[in-house]
Each structure stands twice: as C-alpha cells, then as structure tokens.
C-alpha cells in the first residue's frame, strides 16, 4: 500500500485483531472500517470547516448580492454596484509586492500576536460622467480565516507540509487566531427556524402553534393561539391578537366556506370546533377582504415595521390602514413565505395549516411537538454566526458608504468626480474591526435582529490535546443556565448517535452543554430549487398544492409534501414518492444531506434541505441484506475507494434525526430482519471523542464516564507535536507520556495514542499505611525518582514596547550594578541586553525583562514643551515562590509595529504530596504518602507497585471498567501482544480470554496475586488485585495552591489583610465561623481574630462630644480633658467617618463595663 502521509495510514493497515491485508474480510467484524473512512472525509471538526467554507465561498456572495446597489439621493445619475466579492488567502497586512514574503503561517500569528486573516476584495461598477466604470479587486476588509479551511494555507497539507509550517500534523484546525490567541466559535444549539411548533399550556388550557420566521431581512415570531375556544393570531407587530378568520379573510379574500375547507377539510370534529371563530369576524363586522385588511391595518404598530418603518418616517406619505395591513401581512407575518405579486394563497395555506395543527392538538393532546426533540433543533456553526455578523456589518458599511457619498455630492462645487475606491477601503476597516472584535470578545451583536449574545467564542483550551479536541465538538445551548428546568437538560432518546451520551459538564451547565458524537455531521444549506424540481419529476402523482382546495388537501389518504416546513405539493402515494425520492438521493442525483420523512399523524411528507440539521451515516439494508459487501471493504483497504464513493453508490447514506423515525436500524448484522432498513456502522460511535478514551465504558456506572469526560480535559500530557515551539500563557506537558496499555478504536482515530496524557502505572489495590483514605493514593518514591508523573510547567511573560505620540518609546534597560561593580542580585539572571539568559534559573523577585518606560509620555516635544528625559523601571519580575528556568526568549514585532518580547519560563516538577491523579474512570485522588520502594509490598516476581489504591474506591463507584482495564492491561503486558488491549464500548475484548492468558502464564485467573509485605517481610493475608492502569496527572498541583501567611500586606482602605493567594492574603474568618465562635462563647478568640490580628487601631475619642480626637486633643471641644484612647477595628472607624461625611451624625458614647473599684 502506498504511504499516504496523511495521518490515517496507520488505521488502514493492521486491523482489529492483528489481521493482515490478505486475511478474509467479514462485513460483520470489519464494518467499523467505514468509521476511519468517514473521519477521513468528514473529521471531527469538519463541520466547522465546512460551515466556514460555505460562508466564504457562497454565503458571502449572497449577502453582497442582496445589498449590491447604492444609489445617491442627490446625484440621481450616480450608482454603485458590487458585482462580486471574493475572500483571498491569508497574507500579511503590511503589503509588499514580494509575493513569498506576503504569506504567513498560523504559527507566526500565534507567536507575534497577529490575526490570521485574509483580505476580502470586491468588484465594483459605478458611474463617472455618465460612463460605466468597472473596477476589480478593490480591497474591502480583512476577515479572520479558520485554520484548515479552504482558504487556509494548511488546507489539505500532509504531515510533511504541516511540519514545514511549524504546525502539529494532528492539530484539528477549525479555530481562529485573533491577536495571537486561538479562538473557537462554539456550536450554538437553537430551535429550528421556519418550522411550526405546537405546544399546549396545561395551566391555561391554551394551545399554540408558533413559527419563527427568519429571512435575510428580518426575524420574527408568529403565533396562532387557541384561547377559550377562539383562535387568534399574534405577532410582535400587532397591537393585539387578531381573530384568525379575519386574517384568513384578509389573505386573498377567501369565502367562509373556503376558509372552513382549508382549515378543517371534511372533518366534522374540527369543523365544530372551528365554527365559533366565524362569529368573531361577524361580531366586529368584518365580511370582506377590504374590511379585514382595514381591521388589521389599524392594529399594526406604528414604526414597528423594522426596515420599512425608517423610510416611512422621513419622507414617505402616511399610508392608509389597508396598505398597512397589506404590508404587514405580506412582509412581516410569517415572513418566510414569500409573496409573489399579490397572491396570498400560499400564506393562507400556511396559516390554515397552523390553525389545523392547533385544532388537532386541542382534540388529541398527544399531537403536540417536543421542543427537546433533536429533530426540532438546529445547530449554528461558525460560518452561520459569521454570516449573520458580516451581513449586519456589510449593511452598516453600505449605509456609511452612502453617507460618505452624499456628503461628497452635497458639496456645491466638486473638484473631481467621485471615486469610491478610497472610501470603500476606508469604511471597510469597520468591517474588519467589527469581525475581529466579535470573535475576540465573544459578544455577537446583530442590530437587525436585536441579537446580543455573549460568550459565543472561547479561547481554545490547550491544556491537553483532548481538551482542544473536546472544545471543537462542544455545543452550547441557548437556555439560561440558572433556570431549573429538567426538560432541556435530560438525555433525549433522539440524541442516540448524534450527541455524546456521557460528555456533559456537572453542575449548572449540566445537559445544556453537549458534545457531538464521533460520526455526527451537521448539514449545510442545500439549494431548494433543484429539490423542488425533483419533487415533481420523481413521481407522477405529485402536484403543486396551489392547484388544490382545502377539501382535496385534507382528504384521507392525501399527503401534503412540505419543503422545509412549508406546504408545497400534494400526493396520494406518499410511500411510493418517498421511496423514489430516496432512490434518487442514493444515486447521487439529490444531495445526500436532503432528508425526507413521512408523518402519518399529520398526513405529511417532510423534506428538509436547510442547514444545521444533525445527521449521521448508516449502512443501507435492503430485503434483509446489508448493501455493504466484503469487496467494498477490500477496496477501502486498498485505498481505491473512499467514503464518498460508498455514498454515491448507495451503500451508506446520511439520515437526520427526523428521517431516523422512518427507519428500523439494526445494531449488527445478526439483528437484521426483513423489516430492517439500515444498519449501524459501529455502535460505539454513540460516544464522542472525549468519552471514547474510556476503556470498557459499558461496564461503568454512567456518572463515572461523565466525570472522566470532565477530567480527561485536565490531564497533563502532550499538547501537540509543536508544543515546544509554542509560547502559551500556561502550558503543561508530561515528561514521559505513554500510550495507554488498554486503548480503544476511538483513541486511535483521534490519535490520542500519538499525543497521550498519562502513564501506565502498576497499581495494586490494597489498603496501606492509612494515608490512603478518602481516595488518596500511595506513590512509590523510586517510581517518582525514575520519572513517573514528572511534568513541566511553562509560563509566558510578554511585554510590548510601546511608542508614544510624542515620539518617545519604551526601552529595555541594562543591568544595574552595585558600588563594587557587581551585578545586583535582582538582575543575576539578566544578560547585558536586559533580557534573561536562556537556561538560567530565576528565583522569586528576579527580573526577566528590564523594560523601562519614559516618564514623559504626554508632552508634544515641540519647542519648550518637553518633559523629563528619565525613564521609569517597568521590568517584568518572576514572582513565584519556586524557582524556574528560562526556556525561551523571543523578540519580534506586532502588526502595530511595536516590538514585543516574550519570555517563557519552565519548571520541572515531580509528584509531591497532594498532587492530583486520576484513572480513566472518574476516579480521582490526591497523593497521600510517598513510600520508599523497600517498604512497599512485592510479588513473587519482584514486582513493586507504582501506585497503591485503596479498595474502598470500588464498591460505591461501581467502576467495573477499571477492573477490566487492569486485567486486560495485565494480560496484554504478559502476553506481549498489543492487540489484546482494546476496550471499546460494546465490542471490547472479552475478559474471559484475559483470565485465560493470565493462567497460561502462571498467574491467577482473576488477576489477584500473592504479595509479601515490604515492611515485615511476611506475606499478606489476602491475594491482591494488581496490574497496569492508565493514570492521568491532573493540572491541580499543590505547588500552585499552597499558601500560608503570618503577617503580610493589607488593603489600603480598610487596613485589613488582603485577600487571595496571589496577593499573599489571609484566610478569612467568615460570618459562619464567627457565628460558631459566638455560640461557643470564645470571646477572646473572636477579639483576636477580628481585631488584634486584623485591623485594630488606636483611636482617640472625646467622651464629651462623642467624636474622634487626635493626639489626645478634641478639635470640637477644644480640650484634652475628656479624650480617652481605645482600640477598635479600623473598618468601624472608617464607617463612622464615612457616615459623618454623609451628614449622618454618629456619636460614640463610652462607659466602663467593669468600673475601677475606687
């Protein structure tokens, strides 16, 4: 097989159980190979990249197309048109004609605190002197480019090319680099748009159908509500709810009979329920369309018409109520149904459908929709988020460009013709700034929709490789975290295979933040037009819905075909139609991401082409036989076919959550029956990338897997292959990371075995020394000596050397010397250039960068206005108690032309008491004691444990998977065969075989061996379970948390001890502790803690006036006579004085509690 060098080659050679290429293939065993093939074409972060590519290649053009023309109000002959927009490839902002130097790598951006951005250019056409002028490639703005997207230099790079870019070949991409920091736009979960959702309110007994219409122009929500047996239509733009019959009358002047037909068809039950609504119209005297429009028009909010309102305000004449009503109905209510001409029939059908759904739900409460159903959700990705933002910014740009134009034309005498190129580039910087700011801060503000979301973007966590990967698959929900709702947080059955069942945080965001499963794909938008044509051409029994009356639509057996939720056509043969439609899709004529499903409750066929649907691939099964044959897998192995080939050959297909409801999916080949339609590619893909690290997760109690998902992200290990070329604020690495002994297929697929975060520790499960209670671990000192758990901590110290407007600039000063000419201790790590020496040790207080800033930053420097020439020391000092070494020193320049200096320090730490470790089963513990090797128990073979774990950790946690991992690991080590070490969910290696291997090598079948105590030399009275378990070192280390204080700094205002470790603060004796001491009566302790050891001060108080005196003298009484001294908390003294300053009179009256016996 040819070496492909794309990181996947290893997957395609040695198969699961050590199979060779020549071995026979069984589809049952080897169908999982479709998974690596899928990940090769789609990948874990592919949804981000696909979405961004879609935005950059298509959506951005659509946005510009719909805002293409600018006309001047003053100069009637002038117009400007944007004919095209293109996104370039990332290049330097400071332009140079020398091409090769213009491109830059993401790594350079990270190091130099730059933005990885590409220019956007537009083609424009405009008039000058009545001539049409075409200008191409006018620079508009710069937009950050997603790494590994189509525009990125890393796109399609193989391992060797990635190395040239100084980039880790395993880096997933899918994030942005803004000013040197990596930013991820999290996937946002939303309720689907342009779909009707019916809900019942149990309290009021009302039923409502709502639809969020979203078009390029506006976003609005329309409700059809059944309240007290009457049906009303509600919309933001309407002052009050409007009886539904009036709305339907206004839509195309339907007769009462037609309305009844459209809503109820021939069903008498619905007719009875609906009949009362006609009275509502008659009551207010609405009989005709004209009257209905007038009725609605009067109730339209003034100026509430969004974009239309603005124009009206200024110059358009006041419109009649009929016009208002017409405008509202056409453009605002259910806005996503476009009105062609004045044909309101489609909108009438749509609203009638909503009414019908309400009536149905009122009759049968089961027919309401579930908000939490995954099929009713849409995921918004980076591309969509950016397009919202870009559209808004582009519209602002257009209006400001227009303003600029009008200003130009306003001038009575112009010297030259208007040239828009300069203003375009100038105004375009606002787009650049806007996009950068949004991604930088995470505040997404879209004015059109009144949208204001915070926390959309996050800094990519580089704590470990898996943390970064986990972040790329994270989905955040729009629900408020504080609300105590269980519905959206609960695990939905429809999440099967789409969202990971284990990976969610604990606490407030539990169930709201989710993660994608391994094989999930998120759709991008597919054009409706071709699909529409296919609907009619695929089956002769399909006709446009426009041709039918209500009776025909609702006749039993007739199915309405909905396209993206909108009634579109009618058929009497829905099954035949769906089958034919699917066939065309499987043949590749229709996009594989178009879904079709039947709904017999509502007699509807739903076809969806919109973006953000969650889907995943399945193997197609026909007539009880899987379409996947061994020869297909053979082609896959030989690299002659890829996943997309299987897609176009109808072997696999993507199903979204709604279409899944029409299928019967078998988990394995043996489960296939005559009725089966699809087969699962691999059951363990219901888990995500992070949960996939757990061996034997199907033997664990489920919360334990969830805990591990949270902890796997804190494990110290290898971050990336370029980790030593990075300068991150905080970087943890393990000195000797190891590939887990027991791995899973997922580990191989996400390449965790190449960038692992942990070590295989020999664990013995027994109690030892009493320092192992409450999950504490016993560590072997000799293991630590030999490098177990040894980790490194890198810290960044960066300084930018600024330039000031008066021409002065920051500088790096030299080393200071004492009288004898020796370098002062503080500067012992500095070289003559004022920067720390690489390899030198820095201790607390020593300088690393001797930056100096000018005292004079504000003077103009003109004539006599000159400030002092001195510089002030602004050096960066090392201020951590434990010393570190200087690892790197970098000097460069930012985009703003400022010099930037970065110093990276390095600490190497061996495990110490209190450091946190965890296995892969949610079992965390701190080091309780480190024991000499000779004191530890040893087995017959001389084996001494690295870690002793207390057996009490098992019964209540029920982490059987950990026991299995240990046993499997032991068998793998003894046998020397890495193929044993697979612990995948639902297809792990059977433990019985492990027991057999152990027996064959002279060990006990259950993994428990005879041990001898290292202290007494006598044997232990029980056999002890032992074997290798993969342990992760977590980032929480004692060294970073250890804190004590006897005396130290105080806050200026209150004179109380400062707060927090970083400020060497005290530990607060809080209110509750105070309560305890009061209850106990420990008054002297209270006095000491709250005053003596805190902010006690001596004050002079005048007993005559009750105010504070000074130095024994009372300013108010002008006397020293009654002034006495007392001690009180400074905060209390402060309070008194503050109250006095606010004109609240405070007087202190003192008396002796224990008067002197005289």
């Amino acid at each position, binding site marked *: 097989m040819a070496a492909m060098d794309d990181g996947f080659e290893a997957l395609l050679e040695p198969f699961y159980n050590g199979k060779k290429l020549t071995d026979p293939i069984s589809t049952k065993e080897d169908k999982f190979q479709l998974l690596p093939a899928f990940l090769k074409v789609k990948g874990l972060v592919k949804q981000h990249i696909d979405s961004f590519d879609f935005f950059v290649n298509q959506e951005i053009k659509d946005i510009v197309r719909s805002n293409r023309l600018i006309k001047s109000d003053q100069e009637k002959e002038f117009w400007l048109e944007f004919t095209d927009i293109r996104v370039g490839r990332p290049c330097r902002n400071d332009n140079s004609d020398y091409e090769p130097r213009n491109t830059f790598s993401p790594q350079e951006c990270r190091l130099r605190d730059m933005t990885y951005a590409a220019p956007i250019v537009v083609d424009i056409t405009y008039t000058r002197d009545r001539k049409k002028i075409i200008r191409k490639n006018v620079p508009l703005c710069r937009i950050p480019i997603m790494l590994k997207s189509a525009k990125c230099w890393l796109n399609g790079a193989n391992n060797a090319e990635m190395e040239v870019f100084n980039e880790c070949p395993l880096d997933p991409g899918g994030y942005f680099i803004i000013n040197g920091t990596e930013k991820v736009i999290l996937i946002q979960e939303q309720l689907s748009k342009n779909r009707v959702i019916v809900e019942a309110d149990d309290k009021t007994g009302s039923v409502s159908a709502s639809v969020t219409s979203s078009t390029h122009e506006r976003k609005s929500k329309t409700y059809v509500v059944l309240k007290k047996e009457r049906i009303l239509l509600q919309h933001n733009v309407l002052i009050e709810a409007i009886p539904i019959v009036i709305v339907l009358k206004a839509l195309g002047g339907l007769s009462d009979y037609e309305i009844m037909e459209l809503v109820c068809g021939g069903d008498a039950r619905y007719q009875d329920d609906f009949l009362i609504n006609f009275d509502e119209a008659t009551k207010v005297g609405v009989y005709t369309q004209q009257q209905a429009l007038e009725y609605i028009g009067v109730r339209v909010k003034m100026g509430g018409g969004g974009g239309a309102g603005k124009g009206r305000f200024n110059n358009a004449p006041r419109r009649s109520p009929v016009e208002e009503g017409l405008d509202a109905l056409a453009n605002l209510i259910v806005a996503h149904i476009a009105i062609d001409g004045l044909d309101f029939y489609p909108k009438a059908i749509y609203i009638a459908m909503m009414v019908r759904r309400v009536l149905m739900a009122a009759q049968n409460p089961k027919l309401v929709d579930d908000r939490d159903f995954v099929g009713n959700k849409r995921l918004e990705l980076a591309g969509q988020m950016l397009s919202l933002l870009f559209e808004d910014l582009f519209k602002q740009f257009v209006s400001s460009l227009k303003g600029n134009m009008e200003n130009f034309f306003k001038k009575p005498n112009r010297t030259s013709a208007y040239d828009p190129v300069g203003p375009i580039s100038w105004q375009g910087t606002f787009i650049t700034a806007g996009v950068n700011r949004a991604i930088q801060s995470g505040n997404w503000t879209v004015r059109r929709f009144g949208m204001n979301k915070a926390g959309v973007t996050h800094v990519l966590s580089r704590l470990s490789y898996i943390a970064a990967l986990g972040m790329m698959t994270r989905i955040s929900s729009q629900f408020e975290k504080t609300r105590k709702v269980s519905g959206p947080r609960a695990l939905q059955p429809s999440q099967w295979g789409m969202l990971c069942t284990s990976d969610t945080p604990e606490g407030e965001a539990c169930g709201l933040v989710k993660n994608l499963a391994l094989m999930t794909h998120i759709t991008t938008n597919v054009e409706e037009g071709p699909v529409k044509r296919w609907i009619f051409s695929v089956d002769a029994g399909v006709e446009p819905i426009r041709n039918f009356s209500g009776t025909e639509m609702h006749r039993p057996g007739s199915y309405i075909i909905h396209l993206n939720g909108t009634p579109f056509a009618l058929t009497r043969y829905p099954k035949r139609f769906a089958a034919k439609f699917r066939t065309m899709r499987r043949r590749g004529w229709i996009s594989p991401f178009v879904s079709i499903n039947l709904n017999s409750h509502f007699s509807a066929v739903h076809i969806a082409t919109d973006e953000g649907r969650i889907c995943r691939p399945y193997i197609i099964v026909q007539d009880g036989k899987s379409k996947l044959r061994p020869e297909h897998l053979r082609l896959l192995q030989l690299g002659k076919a890829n996943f997309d080939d299987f897609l176009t050959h109808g072997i696999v297909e993507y199903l979204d959550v709604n279409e899944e409801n029409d299928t019967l999916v078998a988990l394995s080949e043996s489960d296939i029956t005559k009725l089966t339609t699809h087969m699962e590619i691999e059951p363990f893909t219901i888990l995500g990338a992070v949960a996939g690290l757990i061996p034997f997760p199907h033997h664990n109690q489920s919360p334990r897997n969830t805990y591990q998902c949270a902890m796997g992200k804190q494990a110290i290990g290898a971050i990336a292959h370029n980790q*030593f070329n990075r300068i991150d604020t905080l970087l943890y690495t393990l*000195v000797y990371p190891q590939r887990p002994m027991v791995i899973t297929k997922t580990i191989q697929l996400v390449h965790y075995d190449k960038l692992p975060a942990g070590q295989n520790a020999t664990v013995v499960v027994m109690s030892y020394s009493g320092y192992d209670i409450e999950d504490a671990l016993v560590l072997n*000192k*000799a*293991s630590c*000596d*030999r*490098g177990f758990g*040894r980790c*490194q901590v890198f810290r960044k110290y960066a300084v930018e050397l600024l330039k000031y407007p008066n021409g002065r600039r920051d500088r790096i000063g030299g080393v200071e010397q004492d009288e004898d000419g020796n370098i002062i201790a503080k500067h012992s790590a500095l070289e003559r250039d004022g920067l720390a020496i690489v*390899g030198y040790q820095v201790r607390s207080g020593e300088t690393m960068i001797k930056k100096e800033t000018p005292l004079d930053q504000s003077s103009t420097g003109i004539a006599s206005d000159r400030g002092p020439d001195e510089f002030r020391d602004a050096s960066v000092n090392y201020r951590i108690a434990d010393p570190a*070494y200087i*690892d790197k020193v970098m000097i460069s320049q930012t985009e703003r032309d400022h010099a930037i200096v970065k110093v990276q320090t*390095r600490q*190497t730490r061996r495990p110490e008491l209190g450091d946190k470790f965890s296995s892969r089963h949610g079992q965390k513990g701190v080091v309780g004691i480190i024991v*000499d*090797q*000779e004191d530890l128990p*040893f*087995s*017959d*073979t*001389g084996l*001494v444990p690295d870690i002793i774990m207390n057996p009490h950790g098992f019964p209540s946690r029920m982490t059987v998977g950990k026991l299995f991992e240990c046993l499997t690991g032991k068998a793998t080590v003894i046998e020397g065969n890495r193929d044993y070490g697979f612990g995948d969910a639902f297809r792990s290696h059977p433990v019985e075989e492990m027991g057999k291997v*152990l*027996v064959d090598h*002279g*060990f*006990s*079948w259950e993994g428990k061996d*005879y041990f*001898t105590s*290292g*202290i*007494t*030399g*006598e*044997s*232990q*009275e*029980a*056999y002890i379970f032992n074997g290798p378990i993969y342990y992760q070192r977590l980032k929480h280390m004692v060294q970073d948390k250890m804190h004590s204080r006897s005396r130290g700094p105080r806050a200026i205002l209150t004179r109380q001890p400062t707060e927090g470790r970083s400020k060497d603060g005290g530990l607060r004796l809080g209110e509750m502790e105070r309560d305890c001491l009061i209850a106990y009566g420990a008054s002297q302790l209270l006095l000491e803690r709250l005053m003596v050891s805190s902010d006690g001060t001596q004050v002079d108080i005048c007993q005559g006036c009750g105010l504070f005196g000074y130095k024994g003298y009372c300013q108010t009484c002008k006397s020293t006579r009654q002034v006495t001294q007392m001690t009180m908390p400074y905060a209390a003294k402060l309070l008194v004085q503050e109250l006095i300053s606010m004109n609240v009179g405070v007087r202190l009256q003192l008396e002796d509690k224990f008067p002197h016996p005289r």
Partner: protein
Amino acid sequence: MSRVQPSIEELERRKVVGINEWTVTDVTSTDFPGHYPGEDHAWDIEKIRDALHIEFHQNDPLLASFSLIGTDASIANAFRRIMIADIPTLAVETVFINNNTSVIQDEVLSHRLGLIPFKGGREGLDKFLKWWKKPEDDEDPSYFDYNTVKLSLNVECTHNEDAAPGETDPTKLYHHAHVYARDIVYEPIGRQSQYFSGENAIAPTNPDILIAKLRPGQVIDLTMHMHKGVGSDHAKFSPVATASYRLMPTINVLHPILGADAEKFAKCFPQGVIGLEKVTKKEAAQKGSGYEGHEGELKAVVKDPMRDTVSRECLRHEEFKGKVKLGRERDHFIYQIESTGQWDSDAIFLESVAHLKEKARRLEQQVVNMVR
C-alpha cells in the same frame, strides 16, 4: 530445659504458610518463646547455625537466584531492604551543562543521565572511592579524586555527506543523530587512573541506552560529577533492578489424582511442577491408598514445587476440591537479585549481610551506651 518436644511432623506443619483459594493463613512464624506451652524456643546460636542453609540456583553477574533456608522473615527481609536502599553505588549526581541546544531540556537530560548505571573497577569502587559530602550553602564543594568521578559528554550532530540520496533514516542521514550512553567519556583524575583503567574504566553497563536525539546543528556539551550514594536517597543509587524473594511452594496431594484429572491437574501448574506417573502394581495393591484398581493409570506426582508460581489454578476446579493442599515454607526464601551492573549480583547479597552486621554492631554499641 524443654519440657515438651514437638514431633518432627508438627514442626514441619508449623513451618507451612497456608495457601487457600481466597486467603493466606499462618503468615507469621510461631517459634518464639512462650507461644507453645511447655515448649522451649529460646534463642540459640547453635540451632540457627545448624538450620541455616544456602543453596544457589543461578549465579550470573547480573542475575543471582538462591535459596536462604532456615531463617526468619525479618532477617530475610532485612537483607532485601538493605540491598535496595543501603548499598552504595556510583551514579551521576551533578551535571554541568555548557551547551545544550537539543530539544530535550536541561533538567530532563540531567535526570536521564543520572539514571544510567555505570560499572568500574571493583577495588576502586569499594576501597578507593569515599563518600562525598554535599556542601552547605556557604561551603565550597570539595571535589577530590577519592570522592568525585568526572565524566563528559560532548556530541554535535552533523550532516552525513556520504548518505545515500533519498535516505530517510536519520541515523544514516546524520552523524550523531542519536546520543547513546556509550558516547559518555570518563576523565580520570589523580589517583583514579590507578584503579579505573583499561578493563576497570568507568563506563556505562549498557552502552546502548538512548540519551537524546539530535538534528544537525544541535549540540550537547556537558560534564558530569559522579558520587557515591544510596538507594534510600534516590533510586538511581540502588544497585539492584529487582531484589526480592518468594517462599518455597509446597504442594500436597492428599488424595490420588488419576487419569484425565491428573493431566488437567498438571496443566494447572507451570510445566515441570507436576509429573505424571503410572500407578504401580505395588501401589494398587495397597489398601486404603486410593490406588486400588487403578494400576497402569496416570497419577499426578509433585516433581518440582519450586517452579510453581502459586497461581492457585488447581483450587478453582471442583474435581480437585479436598484432594490437594497448597502451602509455602515459611523459612525457605528463594531470592532473586538482578544487579544493575555495578556490583555482581551475589556480591550485593554478601554486602547486605556485612551491612546488617555493621548495623547490629552499631545497635549493640547504642544499647551498651544506653545501659551504661
């Protein structure tokens, strides 16, 4: 004097640690005064001298295996502990890095160098080299030929001009792409050349230990100081990779195991532990032996219990229930000592005996002082 003299069988029985299916019983020895009424177990050097017995199974420079029979676990364990923690060896303690442009950080490189085991002339290591005292903060370090051994490592990676075009193996493409322990150079100082020259030179025991990988332009230039230290300070000073013992297994077949069961029984143990023999005529003739009428069938016979790994597999099967009793001899210690190379494996044990003796002597002195 002893009033009760236990039978030989009784004494044998007391010596056995019970290996049951789920537990280990009779772990501690009971032959101390006052445990058995009327019996005399007073300490007697003659008795101990008679009982003590050493038998070697294997004696290679790097691996020794022998039986120490007739002593208490406390003594046997003391030897083991001393071997791991108290026997001094020479190891790299201080690294002076002049230049290190490799990807491997100074501390990590130093740590790796420290863990490399070295060998050298026995006489020099034992007699000539003395302890090195770590200097206090204000003290100047004292480096002399009798307490410090100087090593250096100076490697630079360069391009190999002779490499075949298209070569991808870095070891062929570059000189010194891999730095091994054999690249470490010993620099004798003063009288050291008398003791450590030729065969006796100080050198890594395993020259193929990989220290670092380099690429062209990268340099490692450092000197190292080796000092004597003990395993209780750092594992690198421990002279053994493994020093442990196990107790001699015993297998008692209580009831005859015959035929297919016997074969299965043999499979429950490592090869060679259980032999299969034919039931002889004589045995079959014996009444109550359990062999009646089984002449010519195979029976399980314990051949070499020392090879048993005590996997307790035979206790798991229903057919052997009650027919076999496993145990271990409490005073028969089978040692296994793997040397890292600086000491001969058997010498480590002898040294540990000397150490224990010295410790005892010192304790004696203390006790004498205490009484005085």
